[in-house]
């Protein structure tokens, strides 16, 4: 595939052309601002689309049509409800902004802003395409998780500042969740960094290039440690983005709306936006670390521009997030932390060992190569089964008797 084809470099060419109107010293700044604008605009519209897609997906799972009334205003064209996000946005903007009398006004205002800011910051290091990474950082992965962890702080701010008991309980839950799931999330990423030998996100994606038998991709997820790491990452990412079944801070049936209880109008919309941004960023990171980033899935498909592949993979992961949400019940807070500390963390540590073995056995060839797979898989499967058994001990479907 031609890395410099016109399609591949398209976005860069547009940027350079626009920037060329400016004097030389301002070009770097303008280029960065353009990249930032592009990311924000792209993901803000993706957010609008995602709210609709999520409702449609949920509706499909639940045997109902979902929103399908709002199309183009003043016409009878409905377009599968494509106008719904716009209508929602207008509704949100025109709602009264209510601040409880006893709330901490400053923190109450800052929380949604901080949450959104941190969520947007994480996009900086994600490579959206072959040449499309907003900021080329040496320690990109580290930066991503540092910025991502700060979002929970904003959730805590919201819960604390609202002066509502439900919000406070939600804030407590959010902190417990943050501490529990930050660890497996990071530990699941360490093997990638170990084997790629770099913390730079572009470096990690480039490491996943190349083809087995000239056809199949060499993404990390297609190795034993990568598959396990991706599974752990996926579960921890669900928890990090407060998505079902880990939506405890927001638990509607228990805490009304958790930390969002005292928010209305546009602040509420900002929370929503930040949640989706966070979800997009985590999914983007998952794609980058495990699913080959912008690499094509098969060698003969490499003519399609890299950013399209990245987008497709991102959407697939997002759809998986929605699919999980549709049916699963919510965990209790103690079960949530138990899952993290007694299952995910030990498994991630084991995975670290497997990755080390994988890296040491990299020069095995021929039939021994197969044993390498077997050993790695067994090293993972044993602890997985044992830990899983311990986690679900005492839980089983029951047989019922009947009165005689």
């Amino acid at each position, binding site marked *: 595939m031609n890395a410099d084809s016109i399609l591949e470099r398209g976005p860069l060419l547009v940027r350079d052309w626009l920037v060329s109107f400016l004097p030389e010293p301002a070009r770097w700044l303008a280029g960065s601002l353009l990249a930032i604008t592009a990311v924000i605009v792209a993901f803000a519209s993706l957010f609008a689309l995602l709210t609709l897609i999520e409702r449609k997906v*949920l509706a499909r799972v639940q045997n109902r049509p979902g929103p399908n009334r709002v199309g183009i205003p003043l016409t009878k064209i409905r377009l599968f409800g494509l106008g719904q996000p716009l209508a929602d946005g207008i509704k949100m903007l025109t709602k009264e902004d209510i601040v409880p009398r006893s709330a901490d006004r400053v923190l109450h205002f800052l929380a949604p802003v901080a949450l959104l800011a941190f969520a947007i910051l994480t996009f900086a290091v994600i490579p959206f395409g072959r040449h499309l990474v907003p900021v080329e950082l040496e320690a990109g992965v580290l930066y991503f998780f540092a910025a991502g962890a700060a979002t929970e702080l904003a959730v805590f701010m919201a819960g604390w500042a609202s002066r509502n008991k439900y919000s406070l309980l939600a804030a407590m839950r959010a902190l417990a969740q943050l501490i529990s799931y930050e660890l497996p999330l990071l530990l699941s990423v360490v093997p990638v960094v170990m084997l790629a030998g770099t913390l730079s996100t572009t470096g990690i994606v480039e490491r996943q290039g190349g083809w087995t038998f000239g056809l199949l991709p060499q993404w990390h997820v297609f190795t034993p440690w990568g598959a396990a790491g991706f599974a752990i990452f996926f579960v921890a990412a669900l928890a990090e983005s407060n998505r079902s079944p880990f939506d405890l801070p927001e638990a509607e049936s228990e805490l009304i709306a958790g930390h969002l209880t005292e928010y209305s109008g546009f602040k509420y919309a900002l929370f929503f936006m930040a949640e989706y941004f966070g979800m997009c960023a985590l999914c983007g990171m998952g794609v980058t670390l495990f699913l080959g980033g912008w690499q094509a899935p098969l060698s003969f498909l490499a003519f399609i521009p890299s950013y399209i592949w990245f987008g497709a993979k991102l959407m697939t992961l997002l759809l998986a997030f929605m699919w999980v949400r549709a049916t699963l019940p919510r965990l209790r807070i103690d079960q949530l932390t138990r899952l993290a500390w007694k299952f995910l963390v030990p498994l991630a540590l084991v995975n670290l060992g497997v990755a080390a073995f994988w890296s040491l056995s990299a020069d095995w060839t021929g039939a021994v190569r197969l044993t390498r797979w077997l050993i790695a898989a067994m090293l993972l499967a044993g602890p997985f089964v044992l830990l899983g058994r311990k986690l679900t001990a005492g839980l089983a479907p029951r047989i019922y008797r009947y009165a005689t």
Partner: protein
Amino acid sequence: MIASDISPLASRLSSGAHTRAVTDPFHGDLLEVSMGPHHPSTHGVFRMQVTLDGETIVKLKPVFGYLHRNHEKLGESTSYLGSMPYTDRLDYLNSMTNNWAYALAVEQLAGQPVPERAEYLRVILAELTRLLNHTCLAGFLLQDCGCSGTPLMYAFREREKILDLFEALSGSRMMCNFQRFGGCRTDASPEWLAAAKQLTDGYGAFLDEYERLITGNEILMARTQGVGALKPDLAISAGITGPMLRATGVDYDLRKVDGYGFYPRFEFRVPLGDHGDTYDRYMIRVLEMRESIKIIQQAFATLPAGPVMDPKAKLRGFRPKPGEAYGRIEGPRGEIGFYLVSDGTPNPYRYRVRPPSFVNLTLLEDLCLGHTVADAVIILGSIDIVLGEVDR
């Protein structure tokens, strides 16, 4: 045996549950939260005044009466027949069984016989109501567990089908007002019977689908098994009835015990639980639905022809002889009973309802102590209350 159960907190503490007494000076800060009356999962205008240690409940005070509308006094100032539509509004999901229990009480009071076809219809409608109620409960309970609506939507899809049947028969989806003293208000047409039979025959497939969807899920089991366990002796001494009692393993089903209606003619089993926890309460209802399907199918197979109303029954100017009667049936939530005292006038002298969900609700604190807020919500959901009946 029962003495230790009277003080729930003391027994909880001695059993080693991780709660501290509210009076313990070392308990640290307790948080008092008023859950309800406007809370998404208190199933109406119910309020739980909970005292929390962290998220653990150390005290719970149920507050209700927000929906009180003087039902029993209204019954005493209305004619016997005039109260029939009001019974619809007690447990507004199960108006058919409320009607039947009230009709049964009046029929006992007046010595009024009921034609055979009407008794069959009553059994069919009562079991359809049981399907309706248990389906709703399964949906609501899983919604309380945090499923984002999918089980609820599955359940409501089937509920609508039953409600359509009720509407076709009685003219109203939920406020059916269908039973009369001495029979039923209208006869079921052959088309209605065919539609009802088709629904019943397909219901087992729906239950299979529903159980495949969620019952074996580990999260559901972790959330419900061992949560809100109820001991049989406590359940008996508190007067618990219905699926909640049978989940503790007590074999007490009025359809078998009283044998009212034509239930002795039908072949069905009574499922019993062993743990009395939320999972058992959920599963017992699912299994009861399967038995209900069998009852309805048998009733359709042997449905006799004939009138649905006793020709001698008197609706206008109905004055039973002085006396008293208590009519009770096995409603979907437990024993629903009506106690009536007649002084020979057109209105009852005393009209009293024995609402199953009100009595079952009395044990809420005992079930919730030592569990978390999240558990309290699903325990309340598994008790299966309707505030129209609790507050009356």
